[in-house]
């Protein structure tokens, strides 16, 4: 146990919950706690996605903290209904409401009782105190809880699968949907914030940005043939796929973020198995191009030393990809809980890698100061480390607060991997070019 966390490499669970709720069509989230939680999380997400993000709060006062949050919660739900007319309200708790012992299911029962016959949106809820887990576990827990509360099994639908997404960018979610569609599969992708958090310019103002998975579609998850679940580094109890397997016997494929040949192969092979189709030619061509790219650039990469940090799932996949192209992952770091990178620890390729779990950015910086690294791969929060060490930072994951285009970044699938590959390779080439006394015009 550390004495103090310095520049945390994780955020709190309600942020993950808010992100999942952004993936439901016509949904507004309500955080049960102080006004600050909602506002801080809005600000943090807006800095990354650059889209309007409204999150309501039950705005605790001293009175609420003493007498319980029921009235505030009910009032906030009513005010959200009156302002936004949502189809769904997503409630998430915070450390405050959990510590005083508010029982959301009881409060919602009371709300429905008072509401009577009035038209009422679907209300989902999850427990996400800030003192338990991280924004990543909060994301998967909320995903799990939404599926657990809504999925029903009626009539299994042929060729239909669930894709339970990870902390992907909107562009990556779009790409996942396209890939699955190419296998002639009907897909329920959840949470789908590919439009709500990466919208176009509007002709009229939308209090709730258009997009997201409709709640009726989410209900239908129980009728899928299988689930692809990207909660790869998470515990089973917060895996939505695992929950559906337990409830309805729907097989779940826990899949790592598809980055690099090896992990992409697993993902595309799974789709091939589930669809009974061969992998479409276009993807095989993308795969060939990626391998060709690896070969073309391998000399610039061999033996380079990389430090990877961020969301444990991303760190896992990026590390495997880097090892695949000859880069030594000298340090793999996550703010995720202990053992969240156990998947790396058991692999031969990472026998000499320093694997830091439950770490903060100051741990990573310390590591970089005392060891040598050539490149950093992770969130924009690593910019101080990169600047001090005078090495490039490839911005990847969440948050990216100092560049545009976070929502359009696509690093998954063969094509997405090629993007990431080019960025890393070019950053290393540029670093070498800039450090030479002669200005070479070629590589």
């Amino acid at each position: 146990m550390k004495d103090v966390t310095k520049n945390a490499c994780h955020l709190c669970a309600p942020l993950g919950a808010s992100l999942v709720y952004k993936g439901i069509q016509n949904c507004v989230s309500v955080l049960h706690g102080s006004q600050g939680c909602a506002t801080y999380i809005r600000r943090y997400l807006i800095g990354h996605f650059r889209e309007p993000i409204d999150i309501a709060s039950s705005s605790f006062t001293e009175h609420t903290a003493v007498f319980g949050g029921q009235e505030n919660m009910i009032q906030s739900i009513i005010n959200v209904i009156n302002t936004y007319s949502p189809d769904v309200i997503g409630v998430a708790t915070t450390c405050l409401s959990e510590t005083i012992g508010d029982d959301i299911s009881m409060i919602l029962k009371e709300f429905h009782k008072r509401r009577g016959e009035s038209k009422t949106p679907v209300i989902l809820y999850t427990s996400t105190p800030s003192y338990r887990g991280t924004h990543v576990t909060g994301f998967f827990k909320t995903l799990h809880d939404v599926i657990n509360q809504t999925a029903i099994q009626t009539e299994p639908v042929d060729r239909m699968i669930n894709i339970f997404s990870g902390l992907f960018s909107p562009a990556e979610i779009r790409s996942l949907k396209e890939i699955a569609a190419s296998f002639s599969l009907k897909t329920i992708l959840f949470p789908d914030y590919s439009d709500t958090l990466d919208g176009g310019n509007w002709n009229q103002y939308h209090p709730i940005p258009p997009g997201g998975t409709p709640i009726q579609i989410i209900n239908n998850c129980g009728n899928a043939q299988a689930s692809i679940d990207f909660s790869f580094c998470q515990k089973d109890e917060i895996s939505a796929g695992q929950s559906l397997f337990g409830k309805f016997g729907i097989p779940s494929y826990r899949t790592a973020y598809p980055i690099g040949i090896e992990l992409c192969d697993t993902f595309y092979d799974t789709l091939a198995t589930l669809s009974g189709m061969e992998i479409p030619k276009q993807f095989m061509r993308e795969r060939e191009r990626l391998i060709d790219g690896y070969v073309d650039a391998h000399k610039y990469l061999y033996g380079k030393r990389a430090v990877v940090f961020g969301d444990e799932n991303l760190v896992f996949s990026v590390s495997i990809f880097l090892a695949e192209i000859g880069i030594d992952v000298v340090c793999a770091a996550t703010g995720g809980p202990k053992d969240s990178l156990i998947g790396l620890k058991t692999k031969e390729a990472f026998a000499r890698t320093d694997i830091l779990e439950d770490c903060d950015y100051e741990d990573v910086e310390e590591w970089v100061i005392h060891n040598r690294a050539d490149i950093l791969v992770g969130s924009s929060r690593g910019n101080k480390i990169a600047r001090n060490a005078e090495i490039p930072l490839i911005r990847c994951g969440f948050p990216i607060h100092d560049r545009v285009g976070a929502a359009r970044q696509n690093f998954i699938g063969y094509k997405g991997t090629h993007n990431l590959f080019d960025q890393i390779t070019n950053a290393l080439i540029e670093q070498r070019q800039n450090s030479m006394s002669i200005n070479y015009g070629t590589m």
Partner: protein
Amino acid sequence: MENRALLKERENHILIKESDQTQISCEKPTLAGAVSQRACVFCGSRVVLYPIADAVHLVHGPVGCAAYTWDIRGSLSSGPELHRLSFSTDLSEQEVIHGGEKKLTAALNKLITTYRPKAAFVYSTCIIGIIGDDVDAICKKISNVYGIPVIPVDSVGFQGTKKDGYAAACNALFKIIGTEPVTNIPVCSINILGEFNLAGEAWIIKEYYQKIGITIVSTLTGDGRIDEISRAHGASLNIVQCSGSMMQLAKLMKEKYGTPFLRVSYFGIEDVALSLYNVADFFSDYPEIKENAKKLVYEEITSRSKELDLYKKKLAGKKAAIYVGEAFKAFSLIKSLRSLGMKVVLAGSQTGNTEDYETLRELCDPGTIIIDDANPAELSRFIIEKEADLFIGGVKERPMAMKLGIGFCDHNHERQIPLAGFEGNLNFAKEIASSLCSPVWRFTKKQSGGTK
């Protein structure tokens, strides 16, 4: 967008100049579910004390509060940068159950031995208000061990609004003031309160004062240093910008040390000049200060007037909506925009008081919407209704403005371009023009049949 009705409880927080004669409702707890742009008590304390660069700022509670406020202000330091690090006791479930005192003690020991700060601030977050850690006692103990001020900041998130957080920050500062002896401080000396050195703004302002012959004892919260703050009671006058946050400290200092104070603002030519003149008038026994001030104002204005005129031409007749944290800024912005030939159609703040809103009403043109503790639904509705061309606010409002197809100027604490002082005023015009005059709006559609 259909014109959704306002929430009933929110109706009297909004008024239209002239058609509504009633007093605005303000200084109230935020309405649950209203999607307020406000944060919490902790936020108020954190933003005020943040720029003190040689102190450790430890946030006591689960990780979120510290993580979201890591390096969030563009407050620059001319030396140490401890303020740019985020420290949290990062309480886990077990610590919430059994109490966080041990963790807090360990964290303070670790931070003080590692960084050797001049002081430490310990911010209490919501959880601490519930589990009841004796933060005061721990701070006292640690302070005795290391011989530096270790100041508890009573910033429990739910115990009030952002404004109560300002008060907690003022109380924390007040504990440091007066702890060092004051010698060799000249008569013509001031403290600068409520200036946070965003993008180096405090440096611009300090230079003005120094040029006209005034000594700065402490800028407290802009490029702040504990030693300077400790000696702040030696100054002859407190100059208070951002009165919403720092007035309480000015009043406390007046009570205890007899230090008089003046309210000022450094935004817009009119208010910067007035501020310098008022300070000079205070030291009227030294008439050269007023002379110097006049000369400085003349030079600063004339050297930029040509360039400023170019922007004025581009901006004339445009309509702006303003939503800020502290009402004082809205006053200056209205005057400043007017001097650029622009018109304000909406003006609001998160934490204004009755007096502030009366001032706003006096300053605004008839028909202007005045709004307290607004939310996106209200802001977007009135922007469309009033056909604003530009929104001035912070990061949370930026995407809303842009989706509405109007220009945006960041006047919040993350800005990286100085907007204070005479040079800041020119930057402000430049900033607005760079948004309003961009050719990209050709491809967007402004809503509700606006003039664009």
